[in-house]
């Protein structure tokens, strides 16, 4: 009877320090194949044939401010608040072909790329690229910058992950950093309603209505810095949140006075924060 080794993989002696795992997944996963013409066509067919009908059935989006997209030429950087796994499919479903044909989505490397099958699946179906969110790493920023310079649009959720309670979390500097290095416009998008359909804590889908509001492009100028641009992103999202539940003119006036409703929610008990969360199903919850 032949010994296990060499017919089988050798055992690793316990006294030998294990090597660092080969990082062919996670942040090191090579997504270039998912931007090949064939993969793009497959993705486009998937979005048009399956994703879009599904999202319109589940999330029933109403869209505001889409005309803002007419003002810019690709590539652009889309930044959106993030409270549900539905946010990405929703954005991909409603973007016009000018932008969705060449689009990449920044996705958490530790979640969407921690298994080979997941990495393959999400890079093919969503055009996902891995982003390190647990430690400083320039790899993902470099990839994103090179993609934009190559004509690809980018979707990024600047909070770095889904909101646990539906309110906006702190905005990180990734989007502003990429804009600084590419000088491409940032298009803010506010999404409301997806948290109620499928929140971080709830895996079941409860169909409902959503609102997606596009904002005015933010252009990174030389006299700005990352913190300044982050502030602009926050204010734009706050204005869009206001606009989504009221109307453009009133939201614009409140924005001009610096009186847009807070997106981070009241500093109070958890139930009260949940109670105050804007909800397309209950417009009166908007905190003004």
């Amino acid at each position, binding site marked *: 009877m032949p*010994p296990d*080794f*060499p017919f089988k993989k*050798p*055992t690793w*002696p*316990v*006294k*030998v320090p294990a090597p660092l795992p080969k990082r062919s997944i996670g942040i090191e996963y090579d997504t270039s194949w998912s931007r090949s013409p064939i993969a793009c066509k497959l993705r486009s067919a998937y979005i048009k044939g399956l994703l879009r009908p599904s999202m319109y059935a589940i999330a029933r989006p109403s869209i505001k401010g889409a005309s803002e997209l007419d003002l810019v030429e690709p590539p652009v950087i889309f930044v959106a608040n993030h409270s549900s796994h539905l946010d990405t499919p929703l954005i991909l479903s409603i973007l016009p072909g000018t932008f969705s044909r060449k689009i990449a989505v920044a996705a958490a490397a530790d979640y969407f790329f921690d298994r080979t099958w997941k990495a393959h699946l999400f890079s093919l179906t969503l055009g996902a690229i891995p982003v390190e969110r647990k430690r400083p790493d320039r790899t993902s920023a470099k990839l994103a910058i090179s993609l934009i310079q190559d004509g690809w649009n980018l979707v990024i959720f600047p909070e770095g992950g889904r909101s646990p309670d539906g309110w906006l979390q702190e905005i990180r500097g990734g989007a502003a950093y990429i804009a600084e290095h590419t000088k491409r416009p940032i298009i803010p998008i506010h999404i409301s309603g997806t948290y109620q359909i499928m929140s971080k804590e709830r895996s079941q889908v409860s169909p409902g209505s959503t609102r997606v509001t596009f904002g005015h492009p933010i252009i990174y100028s030389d006299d700005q810095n990352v913190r300044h641009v982050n502030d602009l992103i926050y204010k734009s999202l706050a204005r869009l949140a206001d606009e989504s539940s009221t109307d453009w003119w009133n939201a614009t006036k409140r924005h001009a006075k610096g009186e847009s409703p807070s997106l981070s929610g009241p500093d109070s008990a958890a139930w009260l924060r949940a109670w105050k969360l804007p909800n397309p199903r209950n417009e009166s919850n908007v905190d003004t």
Partner: protein
Amino acid sequence: MSPRPGYVLEVDRTTPPVLFWNGEGYLLERLPPEQSRIVYPPDPLKPLEDPTEHIRNALSHPIGDSQPLKSLLHPGMRLTIAFDDVSLPLPPMQQPDVRQLVIEEVLELAADAGIEDVALIAALSLHRRMTEQELRHALGDRIYDAFAPYGLLMQHDAEDPDGLVFLGTTDLGEEVEINKRAATSDLLVYVNINLVPMDGGHKSVATGLASYRSVRHHHNVETMLNSKSFMDMHHSELHSANWRMGRYIKEQGIKVFQIETTLNTNTFPPQFSFLQKREWEWGPKDRASFIASSKALSIMGDRARRALFHSIKAPLQLTSIQAGEVEAVHQVTIDNVLKQQLVNVDGQTDILTMGLPYISPYNVNSIMNPILVACLGLGYLFNMYIGKPLVREGGVVIMRHPTPLAFNTAHHPSYIDFFEEVLADTTNPAEISKYEESYATDPWYRELYRTGHAYHGVHPFYMWYWTAHALDHLSSVIVVGGNTKAVKRLGFRPASTLADALEMAEDSVGGSPTITHIRVPPLMMAEVS
């Protein structure tokens, strides 16, 4: 990033079987867990990126009390370039051989200087003459074709009364007799490949270009018993004797420009790369290569298997070159050899195991006969230490090798008689010397050495002397898988399996012995604390 250093693995139940060389083949063996350890050599060092540039730089910036080579060359002078023979490196390296690269640069300088009288000498000492193919491999066609047709590419003849010159005796009465062409040259350039610490230094000329009359003063039992080990220059009588002779040669006005080179341990080409990987790192390709090659070797005949292995050309690469005054150069060389080969090992062991490969310095393109098996295991591998031997005094060495009862009659004629006559009488290195003179002076052996491709008649004695320190140190030597008759004639104990050998060894070292396996080649030197 530096290459990985050597590694000592304590064997436990998670340790995969370890590779044992077995002559012209190899196999995997399990060592007893919790009492065994495996010593792995360091990974190959990064080679020099531009060897030619480094060679030129070494020649123009010599070490020690020496002028640049260029300023030592002038028209009308007599220049001799000596070089190491086929015993180095092991396995023979892929072309271009480092000797070719170095000698071409030396010849370029000689040509620029307008030197007419230039000759090359293969420093054979008492080794066999190299074949044309071997010379072409070592030197390249360009050098061979420029010198060989005119008789200017010579092979040292330690028995040529007209080709040797007696220089005198050292303070200890050692006769110094070396190659006449070398001794009568205005400058002798010696090109070394320093594979192990013993190579090079004064030994290059004092042994490589010496006669039997001279070599016998340090190639003997007393010297070997006082060399612990002969790979450690600070504790080697072999080294001391060569240094005495080398210094004497220098005092006689013979000017030597020493060039020494070190190579990394990139020993096997890609198809055999698994042979120098640690087993737990073998990937699917390595395992497939092992399985396929083992199967192929098992159905091949001896001749085909030997031809296959001896066709291997090692992808060895230059890691350093230093030139100039002999002793200063050699000191730097030793540091560079040890940088590649040294492994720190904590303490001695009861039983030392080793798988012996198909090649030793004395059977390149030839058969590893039983005497060479003994020499490789107990002469070379046992002595690859600094400080203390890997195995304790009274310990046991277990070697794995088929030890075929076979000899190459062209290369090793005196070995056959040595095996049948001398070893049949005694295997004690101290006692065999009574036969030495008759073999050394035998006219037939001398003729074969001088005109054929035979090792000198005395050579098998030297191989046996080489084992003297190990035989003195050990209580028993066991050969696994060897030809029983051959093993017994060597005075060793035959065993069918490693398990049997370990059980037999317990007779000498007691129960639950500690076991150390050296995973060579590639070569390594153990510094035993």
